[in-house]
Structure formats: structure tokens, C-alpha cells
């Protein structure tokens, strides 16, 4: 129980993200589909079959050491791209200070991808949220349930074909209709004001 104040220097990132992308290409030549760059951030678009070994390599390699999973999410490219979903991993190395983004393609007819919880324990809730919002199943996840929406909710809200205002009145969430019914029943006990 001793807290010290340390002076952290401001120094630039360890490896150039382009070099990291090259390294991934060398290690997994048949997995990388494309490399995109925007505002000094590099994203590697990969196939989903070998995603766990690929991320494990990034995590375990002593030169890369991507120990911090900043963010895990998905994007729905409905009618924009051939493959509808992309699961996005934003990785960062707290030791060497470099960043890379991996985007794994997930098709619409079989929305499944392997879970990365064994690599980063924090991916647990990220993947649950992703399943909740996009309906992408993470194979091997220890506890894949809905997290933000009620457990008996139908549909996946962040998909592009899901209406912004939610489901229509007649097929609303049963929990909500139940509350409305209850409030009607109990109205006679309301205070007159």
C-alpha cells in the first residue's frame, strides 16, 4: 500500500502501424484480405476462421505485445458491402504504445465468430453487447446472454434494418405491455389531485 507519483514521458508510438500490418501479413498470408489507412490509423481486414490465432499472436508476440483490448464492436454494412457484418477489434500495447485495428468479416447467413475471452478477460461483456445489439454469436463464450436489452427482447437494435423508434405498437415488448396493463388496473387507487 504505497502510492508513488511517476513521471511518464511523452514519446511517440513504438511501431508504425503499417509495420504491424506487414507482420500480420507475413504470419497469416491467406487470412488478410486488405489493409486500409485513415488519419494515421491502420486497419487490417481479415477472414474470421483464424481470428483467434491471429489475435493471440498479436497478444503474445514479445515485440507487439497488444495487451490492452481497447474496444470490441461490430458494424452493420447492410447493402453497402458484400459481407454484411464486421467485428472490429481495437488493440493497443500499454508497453510499446502502438495501435492496430482488426476487422473480421462475418456473413449475414451465418453470423458466428470465435470468442476472444480466453485472450482478454474483458472481452466478455463486449461480446455480450455485440450479441445483444447485432445478433452475432460468439462461439466458446462462457455466458452469452443479452446484456443491455431485456432478456426476452426480439430483434437486434443496432442493425441497420431495425427501426429507430423501436418495434410497432402491436408487437411491443411483452414486459412493457404488461406494465401498461397493470397501471390501468391500478388506476382506481390513484390519488385524486
Amino acid at each position, binding site marked *: 500500500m504505497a502510492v*508513488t507519483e511517476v513521471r*511518464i514521458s511523452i514519446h511517440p508510438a513504438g511501431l508504425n502501424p503499417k509495420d504491424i500490418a506487414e507482420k500480420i501479413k507475413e504470419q497469416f498470408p491467406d487470412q488478410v484480405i486488405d489493409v486500409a489507412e*485513415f*488519419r494515421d490509423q491502420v486497419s487490417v481486414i481479415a477472414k474470421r476462421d483464424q481470428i483467434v490465432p491471429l489475435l493471440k499472436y498479436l497478444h503474445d508476440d514479445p515485440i507487439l505485445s497488444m495487451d490492452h483490448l481497447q474496444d470490441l464492436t461490430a458494424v452493420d454494412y447492410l447493402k453497402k458491402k458484400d459481407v454484411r457484418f464486421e467485428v472490429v477489434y481495437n488493440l493497443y500495447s500499454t508497453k510499446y504504445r502502438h*495501435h492496430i485495428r482488426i476487422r473480421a468479416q462475418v456473413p449475414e447467413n451465418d453470423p458466428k465468430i470465435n470468442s476472444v475471452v480466453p485472450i*482478454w*478477460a*474483458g472481452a466478455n461483456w463486449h461480446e455480450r453487447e455485440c450479441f445483444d445489439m447485432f445478433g452475432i454469436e460468439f462461439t466458446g463464450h462462457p455466458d452469452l446472454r443479452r446484456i*443491455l436489452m431485456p432478456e426476452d427482447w426480439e430483434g437486434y437494435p443496432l442493425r441497420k434494418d431495425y427501426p429507430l423508434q423501436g418495434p410497432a405498437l402491436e408487437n411491443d415488448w411483452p414486459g412493457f405491455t404488461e406494465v401498461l396493463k397493470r397501471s390501468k388496473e391500478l388506476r382506481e387507487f390513484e390519488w385524486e389531485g
Partner: protein
Amino acid sequence: MIQKEAEKIFETKELNVNMGPQHPATHGVLRLVLDIDGETIVKVTPYVGYLHRGIEKLGESLSYFQALPLTDRMDYVSAMSNNIGYCVAVEKLFGIEVPERAKFIRTIVGEMSRIANHLLWLATHALDIGAMTVFLYCFREREWILDLYEMICGARLTVTYPRIGGVRNDVPQEFLESLWKFTDEFPSRILEYETLIDQNRIWLQRTVGIGVISAEEAVSWGMTGPTLRGSGVPYDIRKHMPYDAYDKVEFEVPIGTTGDTYDRYRCRMLEMRQSNNIIRQCIEKLPPGPVMADEPKFTLQPKDKMMPITHPTKEMAYFIEEKACKGCGMCLRACPAKAIFGEKKKPHKIDQALCLQCATCFVTCKFKAMKIVPGGKGLSDEKLAELAAAPVPEEITKAAEHLVKQFEFIKKGPKVPEGELYVATEVPKGELGFYFVSDGSGKPYRMRLRAPSFIHAGCLPRLCVGHLVADVIAAIGTIDIVLGECDR
């Protein structure tokens, strides 16, 4: 002997206890289901989502300007930091540079919100554990900061003071003076809290060795901010990826060693002192100049620049031309004062007594049936029709044009380059990340918020198992969560 016999008679079994969602120590609406064996926690299952408002989905339907106030509502105890996080991310996406003065002002208000947040955290954390006095002392200082907020933007909680491209307005001189006074006073106030609890025997018993997490594990769980630094990982985005003016000020980062509740408490206490230092340096170095980037294509400029001619609202009325009105009902629904009435497919009318002259109907009307008539309130319809028939002065037409232009700009948003990026900033609770996918329009195709509270709430089972029921309260306090941010 008696105990052994008692064990033969009574069997023990695990008990399932529900805690929350309306429990005073859960800091909002967090529900925990505890499996307990006697007093010891065997398993914790957190349930979140009671405050889910779909900010990500909403953000995709709004332009970049319109989505800014939503970020206040995430972490409402440090709204400034959330705004800054959003603005920094959007500015990087747009590719615009913020003026130097705005950067320093943002750093000041960001650190103020860090102090305000840590004060609220300390107050509630100490209250949960049983130290009532600290709560009252902390709120005294927090109130001071909120009053200072009020001086610069008029709001206390949901501020929306930082804007895309800078800040809303320059800070007044009195604000800097009273803030300087605050920074003079504040270190002695921190000492006051520390004398109350730092060596307090009850406090030590409740925090030392509780919720221990090692450095490696903490990184693996995705912890960030002071929660991570308590375990001894020197990861601070203000140093790793400097934004605003953090590369121009000097400060140190407190690091713990054991990673228990006490270390995290000490880290935050020292962090408040550092924030105080940063504010003082910023006030000393504050350069003169503009506070909004001169990029009219990407930012909302000051009102006199966007609307050079503003119409004299007092001396005019809005009037619907009967011939042009198709009776579509658009203005009827849009009117905030409900001053427009009429049936469908028949010309509408405005009740002049209710009209606020806000110009919402004028902007909404697609058939250009809405006319601006010079003249005061309280004129009869016949008189207004007569006035409307006369040619409108040029000044008013121009003012109307500027108004519509500005309205469209905010609603449609600027033209943004296509691409995607993830930008993280250090908010008081940890790493707040924004991941944007832009498709070239004025609205984000995908807006993802990486909320630190969400990740930290996920760590609760790891921190609580093996401890006593009372320590769950300490664990909830130590990770510093706000459920508004957790559920988004």
C-alpha cells in the same frame, strides 16, 4: 465439539441474495445477484441496462452537431470530459485544428470535471463505507466547481460547453480569478479529507487488501484510468496519446503497488492534486486569441458570423398565405407553441397570440407559404394579409435566408471524409473511446462509445468473489461507475 455436532444437525447451503436495482450503494440502477455461503461471496452476477437509451442508435440518426448534447447524458457527473472526448474525436475525423486558447480552456474545464468527479466519488465511496463527514465536505467543494461552471456556460450539470472546433464562448476574466482562488484553497481542503480517513482505522480495515487485482489481470480485464493505475500500470492517455494542451503542461501520474481499494483511493487523491496543478499552469500559460476554429465548413461559427443580418423579432409576425398552403400539417406538428391550427388539406392559420416567432414553421414549410410580415403583434388577419401582399423589405428576406441556411447546416451536418477511426481520451473514470465509421455524409454511419463504466462493471465478479458481503459495497465504490454511462 459443540460445533461439530451442530454441523451434523444443520446442513449449510448457498443463499441467493438480490441486491438492487434500487439500492442506495449501487450508484444508480445496478442489480447484483449474489450467491453467498454464510457471509462469503461465491458468485456475483451483475445485471445492467436499466438506463439504456440507445445513444449509439440515436447518434447514427443525428448529425455530428446534434449528437453532442447526448454525450452529456452519459456520465452526468463529469459531463465536460465527455463533451471534450466527443469533440476531440470528431475534430480528428474532420481533420481540423483547434485554436491554442480553446485547447487550454478545454484542459482547464476537463481537469475541473476530474476534480468534481473525484469529489463525488470520494463522497459516495466514503458514505457507503460509513464516513458521513467526508460526504458533506466533498459536496462543499463540488458545489464551488459547479458554480464556476455556471459562470462560463450557465449550466451546472449538462453543460455542452466544448463544441466541435473549440468552445462555445471565451471565459470571462472573473472566472479565471475565482478559479485561481479555488486552486489556492483546494490543496488544503484535500488535506482535510485526508485527516479524516487516511489513517482512520475503520477505513483501513475496510479498504486495505479488499478487491486486489494484479497489474496483468487488470489490463486483461480492460481496466483503465485510476482503477488500472492503482494496480501499478502507468497507462494514462493524457501522456500516451496527448490531446488538447496536455503536452504543454507538466504533471505526474500516481501509480499504486498492490492494486487494492486503498491504493486506488490514494491514486485518486493524488490525482486531484495533479489536476489542481494542471489548472494553475494552464491559467498562467493561457494564450490570447480566438476560441473557435476558423472552419466555416465544419464548425458552427459565432452567431454574428453565421447570421450577419438577424431579423428584429419584436416587430414582425408570421403569416400563412392561403393560396400557397397545401394543408400538409408539417408546420402544425413542428410548432413548439401549438399556435398553428387547421384541418388537413385546408389552409392553416396562426394564432398570433400564442406565436413565439421562433421561425420553426418558416423553416419547415416546403411550399413557401409562410411569410414574414413586418409589424407588431396583435394585428388582425385581414391587416396581416394586406401587409403580406406588399413587397417584403430586402433585409428581412436576407435574414430569413441566413436562418434557413443555418438550420439546414445543423440538421444535415458537414461533408465528412470517408473513413473510420478510434479516438480515446482520459476521462475521470478511465478511457472513453469513440469509434466512428463515416460514409461521407453529415451523420456518422456508426457511432460506438467505449464507456469505462461498462467495462469496470464487468470486472465486479472478479473483484468481489471471496470477500464478505459488506465488501461488495467497497468494490462498487472503488471502480467508480456511473450507470448512465454504463448503459448508454
